[in-house]
């Protein structure tokens, strides 16, 4: 009992829907679409698709669409036709469709032959057909035509305009009756172009052979794709596989007359538009379904649409866009990286720009720094040289001594030998000895001058491999005269192992010079016997070290930190530059200069340099 109301409701719903169905059934328009060679064939598949879509879109009524394909169109064999006619009669004999849309020329021919038997009064729209393929004389008052015009010459000329150096055009067109018809039409229409281009036909070739031929076309060739329904070997080609394969192997650009072939393989140009054609046909269909008489509707045949070109193909075949006819549309332009990644690019480039700016700035700074470093080194060199001059001033007495000593000996020896020679019977052995002495003394004097000159000459900071021990003994030699004059004893303890360092020998020598002169100054108030400087070199791991110890009063602890500061001096005549310059030089050599007081008395200066 509980079920009863539910059953009632269900019944009510079913009844309601049935009445609704009946009501709509009364308004249904029955449409028959007759295709020429099956829905999978290009270009008709595009037309079929658009046709269905346009019908559905434009129709105010529900449509009951039946579609049939005239498979027999692939061959000239008339045998399959009668059963197909019977079949259609069986289906539609009782109830004629409200409208028949005939797609393509083979279907148009077929239906014109059998119209009287099958659909005597059903209105018909012939579409997707070239006007030449409709027998106008046989049209009835129930027929209307929405045709197109193939203007092959215009098509070819359009192509020749964008690829002017084309010399050969290979035409792809099969061997079915429809294709044979068009070959004849093309031959006729293209005749005027014969002096410009050579045309190659493949209608008697198997498709495989055709592919081989078109893979090796001479330079400046092009391929015109008309259609390939049945090849020269009698093999039918469905779908768009034939065109795809041709595209994959061919060595020339392909153009075509219909945009159903457009979108991947063909370059483009003026083309029939499947969509526009279907729209026009569907519009006519709607007028007929709306009650207009088909025979009264006259639609002028449509020509090629405005030219469109596939950007990718233009790129591939290097066809300049400037050669395209005015008003051309370019499709499939691959978005540039800029269009796709605008923000990313903007971000990345701004980061890069910023970075570059930063790098430039840093480089600039670095350049400035380097310049400043060079300048400061130059200044240091100059100051060091001035300092050397002032040291040299202090050394004047000892240098004069060093030079005059050998000079004095030379003069006396020369005079002696002169006298001996004058005397008539010189002791040749002694003369030889004296001359040897003169030469030795001359060398000595020259050496002193050489050393002095190298100490004072203006040279840029120059890094050389030198032995620290040698440098120290050289400096001590230079100072020996001064040490005698100042009555200071110089004690040296040089390491037996060599101390290879990298540096400017003159500047390093100056450091030691300054430190020793400083030590002498520190002891000027000491009794002569106590004036002693101990110079020691040692090798400590990877460091060469020289220490200079005096026996003076040492450095007051408060001053230990300041002694290396410029203009700090405790001497009455001092400039306060000696130690400062010494430290600057040592640091420029990546070394260290330190001062300390010895446990007994006196100061100790230590120079350490990295070993080379």
């Amino acid at each position, binding site marked *: 009992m509980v079920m009863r109301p539910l059953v009632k409701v269900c019944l009510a719903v079913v009844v309601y829907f049935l009445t609704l169905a009946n009501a709509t059934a009364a308004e249904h328009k029955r449409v028959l679409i007759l295709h020429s060679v099956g829905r999978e064939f290009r270009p008709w598949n595009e037309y079929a698709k658009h046709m269905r879509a346009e019908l559905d879109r434009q129709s105010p009524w529900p449509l009951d669409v039946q579609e049939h394909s005239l498979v027999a169109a692939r061959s000239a064999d008339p045998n399959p036709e009668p059963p197909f006619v019977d079949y259609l009669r069986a289906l539609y004999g009782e109830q004629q469709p409200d409208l028949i849309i005939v797609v393509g020329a083979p279907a148009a021919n077929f239906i014109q032959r059998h119209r009287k038997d099958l659909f005597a009064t059903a209105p018909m729209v012939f579409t997707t057909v070239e006007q030449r393929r409709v027998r106008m004389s046989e049209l009835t008052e129930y027929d209307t035509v929405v045709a197109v015009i193939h203007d092959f010459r215009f098509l070819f000329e359009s192509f020749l305009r964008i690829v002017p150096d084309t010399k050969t055009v290979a035409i792809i067109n099969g061997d079915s009756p429809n294709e044979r018809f068009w070959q004849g039409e093309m031959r006729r229409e293209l005749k005027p172009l014969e002096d410009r281009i050579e045309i190659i036909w493949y209608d008697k070739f198997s498709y495989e052979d055709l592919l081989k031929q078109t893979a090796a076309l001479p330079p400046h060739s092009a391929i015109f794709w008309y259609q390939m329904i049945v090849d020269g070997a009698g093999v039918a080609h469905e779908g768009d596989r034939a065109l795809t394969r041709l595209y994959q192997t061919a060595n020339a650009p392909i153009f075509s007359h219909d945009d159903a072939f457009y979108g991947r393989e063909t370059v483009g140009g003026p083309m029939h538009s499947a969509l526009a054609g279907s729209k026009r046909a569907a519009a006519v269909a709607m007028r007929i379904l709306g009650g207009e008489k088909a025979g009264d509707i006259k639609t002028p045949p449509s020509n090629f649409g405005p030219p469109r070109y596939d950007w990718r193909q233009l790129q591939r075949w290097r066809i300049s866009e400037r050669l395209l006819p005015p008003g051309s549309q370019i499709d499939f332009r691959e978005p540039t990286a800029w269009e796709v990644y605008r923000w990313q690019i903007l971000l990345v480039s701004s980061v890069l720009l910023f970075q570059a700016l930063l790098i430039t700035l840093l480089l600039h700074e670095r350049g400035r720094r380097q310049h400043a470093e060079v300048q400061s080194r130059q200044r240091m060199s100059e100051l060091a040289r001035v300092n050397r001059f002032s040291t040299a001033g202090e050394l*004047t*007495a*000892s240098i*004069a*001594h*060093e*030079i*005059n*000593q*050998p*000079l*004095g*000996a*030379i*003069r*006396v*020896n020369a*005079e*002696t030998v002169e*006298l*001996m020679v004058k005397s008539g019977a010189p002791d040749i052995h*002694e003369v030889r000895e*004296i001359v040897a*002495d003169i030469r*030795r*003394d001359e060398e*000595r004097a020259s050496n002193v001058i050489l050393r002095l000159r190298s100490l004072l000459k203006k040279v840029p900071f120059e890094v050389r491999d030198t032995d620290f021990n040698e440098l120290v003994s050289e400096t001590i030699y230079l100072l020996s*005269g001064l040490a*005698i*004059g100042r*009555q200071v*004893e110089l004690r040296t303890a040089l390491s037996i192992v060599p101390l290879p360092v990298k540096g400017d020998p003159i500047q390093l020598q100056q450091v030691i010079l300054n430190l020793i002169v400083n030590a002498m100054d520190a002891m000027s108030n000491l009794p*002569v016997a106590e004036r002693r400087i101990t110079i020691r070199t040692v090798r400590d791991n990877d460091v060469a070290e020289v220490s200079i110890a005096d026996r003076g009063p040492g450095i007051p602890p408060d001053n230990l930190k300041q002694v290396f500061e410029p203009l700090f001096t405790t001497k009455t005549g001092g400039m306060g530059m000696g130690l400062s310059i010494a430290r600057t030089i040592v640091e420029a050599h990546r070394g260290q200069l330190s001062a300390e007081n010895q446990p007994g008395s006196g100061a100790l200066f230590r120079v350490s340099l990295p070993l080379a």
Partner: protein
Amino acid sequence: LPGVVHIVDDDISFRTAIQRRLQLAGYDVITYSSAQDLLERLPDEETPSCILLDVRIPKLSGPELQRHLGELGSTLPIVFLSAYADVQTTVQTIKAGAEDFLIKPVNSDLLLKAIEDAIARSEGLRKHRSALDAQRAQLATLTPRERQVFELVVRGKLNKQIAHELGSTERTIKAHRQKVSEKMKVKSLAQLVSIAERLGILAQSSESDPTPIV
């Protein structure tokens, strides 16, 4: 005039060159490499000789050696020879009695002249010194009484005064004076005064005598 030249120079090369030249000129040469060396082997002052001394020598310098020698009573003339002369050192050494101050490199003639002069002076000094020694020896032969008379005579005392001072007679004093003149080998009072002066006798006891010389 031959003589001995003592060369003090730490520079063997220069030392040898000078030695050669001086030997060629006829001098005897003794070389020393340092001041210390010379102090250890003090030169003989009795032969005519001089010292050729470098200013700058290690440890004890030339001027210091000069001072040491002075303290030791050496009278050897010193010729300084320096490769570099500052005014201060030059003045100091000359004031301290240096014979000459030469600059290296030195002209041989100049050097030889200086050496010659120095040796001549050395010779003069030596002669003077030996004369003095002879007079001292004569003085030593005087008896104490004669010495007393001598000292009073050279101070210009009259015989009568001397006799009164020494508690003797005028005649005895006269005899002593005679003896003194003989022993000191003088013929006049002036000569006697000169000797007393040279031997420093006048200076010695002038303070002990308040009597004015009239």
